[in-house]
């Protein structure tokens, strides 16, 4: 009889459950006074607006290609006070090297804003402006190698790793920011969704824009994300290493040109699809927004 009591199934289940819970709780922080800290402003629910702002930024600013992404990554690297002055100097140098590409992008944005305001986008002007963005971006890396090498020399290994993490994170955001119009599963928060809210577009307008945009993008050579990802991986591997020479990153110029050129063409074709379906009031507001972006193309002073 004693033997039967010990092997009672319900009792064994209870014992096993209690053991499971107790042992797990012992290990998973239950014994620690500060095991689960209280929430603060940086908890998950509070991050969306700032992250959405970055997404919007990446929709409009492509001029330096991956070099721009590297420069943006310096904004929140969180370096020590001793390094801050030098890193800030390098950040400004990188933006200065990208200035011709930034000016080209600014001209494109201004041409688009003017075209929307006048209900007359000049395709020749826009195409020329896109080509200028691409051509200027192709020269950015060669102009930036000294600054990148100095950056590597200044940063500690953990800071280099953080920079590479940020470059990869920016690239992921960039891809989502510039690809989602074509992905029906990802329309919430897309450029078109933002515009729908901002300009009060009707469903009919949205449908026409979507159709026109898809048609317009057929003429744009597809961006090969693998090409950019490969360059970013090469940069990351090299930058994490003890020795680094930016001059050895031979794919950088091509990657920068493709990224900046495709981003510019993507923006232009989106505007070309939007412009014809707008009402006069919507047109005025959209032109104002485009002009605003033209005015604050990240030149490193923001």
């Amino acid at each position, binding site marked *: 009889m004693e033997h039967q009591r010990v092997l009672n199934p319900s009792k064994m289940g209870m014992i096993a459950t209690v053991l499971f819970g107790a042992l797990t709780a012992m290990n998973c922080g239950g014994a620690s006074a500060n095991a689960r800290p209280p929430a603060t402003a940086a908890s998950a629910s509070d991050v969306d607006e700032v992250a959405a702002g970055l997404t*919007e930024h990446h929709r409009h600013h492509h001029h330096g290609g991956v070099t721009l992404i590297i420069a943006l990554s310096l904004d*929140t690297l969180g*370096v020590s006070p001793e390094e801050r002055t030098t890193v800030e100097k390098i950040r400004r140098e990188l933006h200065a090297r990208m200035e011709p590409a930034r000016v080209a992008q600014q001209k494109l944005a201004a041409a688009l804003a003017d075209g929307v305001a006048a209900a007359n986008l000049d395709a020749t002007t826009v195409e020329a402006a896109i080509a200028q963005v691409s051509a200027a971006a192709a020269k950015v890396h060669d102009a930036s190698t000294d600054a990148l090498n100095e950056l590597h020399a200044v940063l500690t290994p953990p800071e280099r790793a953080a920079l590479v993490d940020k470059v990869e994170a920016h690239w992921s955001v960039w891809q989502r920011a510039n690809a989602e119009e074509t992905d029906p599963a990802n329309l919430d928060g897309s450029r078109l969704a933002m515009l729908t809210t901002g300009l009060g577009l009707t469903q009919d307008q949205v449908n026409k824009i979507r159709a026109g945009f898809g048609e317009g993008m057929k003429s744009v050579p597809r961006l090969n994300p693998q090409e950019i990802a490969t360059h970013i991986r090469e940069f990351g591997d090299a930058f994490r290493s003890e020795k680094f020479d930016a001059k050895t990153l031979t794919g950088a110029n091509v990657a920068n040109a493709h990224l900046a050129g495709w981003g510019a063409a993507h923006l232009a074709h989106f505007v070309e699809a939007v412009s014809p379906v707008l009402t006069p009031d919507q047109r005025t507001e959209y032109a104002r927004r485009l002009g605003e972006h033209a005015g604050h193309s990240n030149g490193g002073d923001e």
Partner: protein
Amino acid sequence: MSLGNQTRMLRRFACAVTLSATLAATPGCVPMIGYDDYPPDGYVATTAPVYFEGRPVYWYGNRWSYREGGHWNHYDREPAGLYQRRMQGPPVRRNYEPSRARPAAGGPGRRR
């Protein structure tokens, strides 16, 4: 209860104890598969990390996370050094479209 049933129950009991002991011996109880409460790309790209134990760590979702071998990991128990950093203020964030969001949080996002 038959002898066969008793044997099966004994085996289940032993398995439950073994599983509990194994979990208890695993440092941190970190759920590595299917857990998505790590800093998303938009957060990493806009937030200053804290440098701790030779790596950048991010305060996100009420815990400190860090990259390790291409994956995210986290501290199950908050180290004292990170607790002190957190008490100094929220992480520094960069807002690239100020009209879209509240001002980025201030406070010490610098390392160590």
